């Protein structure tokens, strides 16, 4: 109906051969895309493994990152992601609860969905620019890791809201009805019935969001990080160095082989962190499914 009609392959090939031909194309294309993706991982792991040793992980970077390690970059990334999680989690969980338990008006329900999920569609560089204008210039915070954490938090709110909302919505109505029949008021129902399920959904969302946020460069490069010479931030309003911006700085000196080597090492560390978050998200999701099916 679709492709075969246009090509009229039947005119010069019998169906059995077209079938073989089609399957062959599928196999071939799959092998090509699998090899490409395997190439990616191999390059990162192979080049990264050569650069990483205990010294690399535990010393500070020198000479604009071309020498030394990435200790403070790791600390900076962890600080950013911890801050972002602490800020986004309560807001997103609250939003999910309000949307499922209080918001009954159909129009408002749809409007809030559009607004929250629309946030997810905004390109990451725009978040960086927004942070630069609104926080750094308008609120005069200066370049600081707190602003970076706030911006990353805004970015991952939609992911957490959706995950929490879906798991809250999967609670059967009879659970709520039974709790109400026992004489609990609405908020007690939320605390005892809705919240436990909502929190585990929100944690899954948070892990997915964190996996994405920790690798983001564009949102934080103008507002939260300095490229070198920065160590532990002494207060909330000081810049940090982070893994993705460190890779950016090193990639721009790609002709220097030592800098490139350090960039691969940093990439491998970053990818391991991303995978730790996404694999834990996979596990919590599997666990969550078994809970709601019980």
């Amino acid at each position, binding site marked *: *109906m679709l492709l075969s009609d246009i090509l009229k392959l039947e005119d010069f090939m019998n169906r059995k051969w077209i079938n073989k031909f089609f399957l062959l194309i599928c196999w071939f294309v799959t092998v090509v895309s699998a090899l490409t993706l395997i190439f990616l991982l191999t390059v990162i792991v192979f080049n990264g493994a050569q650069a990483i040793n205990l010294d690399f992980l535990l010393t500070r970077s020198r000479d604009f990152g071309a020498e030394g390690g990435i200790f403070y970059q790791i600390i900076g990334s962890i600080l950013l992601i911890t801050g972002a999680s602490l800020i986004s989690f309560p807001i997103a969980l609250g939003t999910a609860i309000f949307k499922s338990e209080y918001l009954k008006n159909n129009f408002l329900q749809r409007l809030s969905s559009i607004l929250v*999920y629309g946030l997810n569609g*905004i*390109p990451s560089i725009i978040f960086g620019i927004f942070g630069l204008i*609104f926080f750094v210039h308008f609120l005069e915070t200066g370049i600081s890791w707190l602003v970076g954490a706030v911006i990353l938090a805004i970015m991952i709110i939609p992911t957490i809201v959706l995950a929490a909302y879906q798991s809250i919505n999967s609670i059967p109505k009879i659970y709520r009805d039974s709790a109400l029949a026992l004489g609990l008021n609405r908020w007690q129902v939320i605390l005892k019935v809705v919240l436990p399920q909502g929190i585990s959904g929100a944690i899954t969302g948070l892990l997915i969001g964190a996996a994405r946020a*920790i690798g983001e*460069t564009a949102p934080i490069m103008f507002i939260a990080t300095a490229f070198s010479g920065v160590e532990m931030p002494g207060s909330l309003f000081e810049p940090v160095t982070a893994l993705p911006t460190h890779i950016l700085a090193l990639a721009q000196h790609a002709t220097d082989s030592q800098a490139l080597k350090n*960039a691969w090492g940093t990439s491998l560390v970053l990818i391991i962190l991303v995978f730790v978050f*996404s694999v834990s998200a996979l596990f919590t999701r599997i666990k969550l499914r078994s809970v709601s099916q019980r």
Partner: protein
Amino acid sequence: MSAYTSKIGKGYVLSSTLISTAMILLILAVLFVNSYGAIIEVGWKLFTLKWNPPDARFGILSMLYGSLVVTFLSLSIAVPVGVFTAVFTAEILPSKYRIYVKSSLELLAGIPSIIYGLIGVAFFSVWIGELFSLQSGRTIFTAAVLLSIMILPTIITLCDDAIHNVPRKYREAARGLGLYKYEVILSSILPIAKTDITGTVLLALGRSLGETMAVMLVIGSIDKMPQPFYNFLVPGQTVTSKLGREIAESAFGSLHFSVMMFMGIVLVIIVLSLTFVAQRYFKTGRLYE
């Protein structure tokens, strides 16, 4: 006591909802306020070809063209490859391997874009430079190839879902008519999965348009239309790479900055409309991760 906590609780969930819903409006408002100067002072001349801030020439068309071309090229590589691979994983691959393929695809989709940029700088731009014997391998084509690889895992896994979600009965009915596998897939399964696949393509389109880091490192950053316009083996510029490179250089509050904001808002409007159209295509309200 209980009524009191109830009120605090309701206040908390209400205010967090207000924060999360107001955020997008705040971002749009900030962008709009800051691009107002450009709209007033430069006006229709924004849509011209010449970009030269010291000369007060602020034409953004070559950046918009760059964004559209890079996106179009990357999708025309990634979509066919992605759909065929998804047909393989959903229809040909034995289903016991499916979970492994799906999990590895989701992990691959999570690789940060800056790492794609590094791979592009270290390998693809060198290869493409040598392959076409160019002075510099940082071209529009390089960026498109890199982006197509970057969105490939997402396209495969979403198309695989789309094909996998086609109810069994259609396959059985088509097989029952004595159709070969390719006929089942082309005339029965793909037409049913078509809406979800279209949604996937639109989402990939939005992601390609909004991608910054990978593109910025390999595109070469020259603010010119390619000459002739279909020559993709020359350096170019996209809206995002322009923003990424120049925001830090342009003084806050200047006309230059304001024009950059205007580019940002054009980008946001295009990407958001794509996202919303895409969401209508998916039957389940799947969030693009």
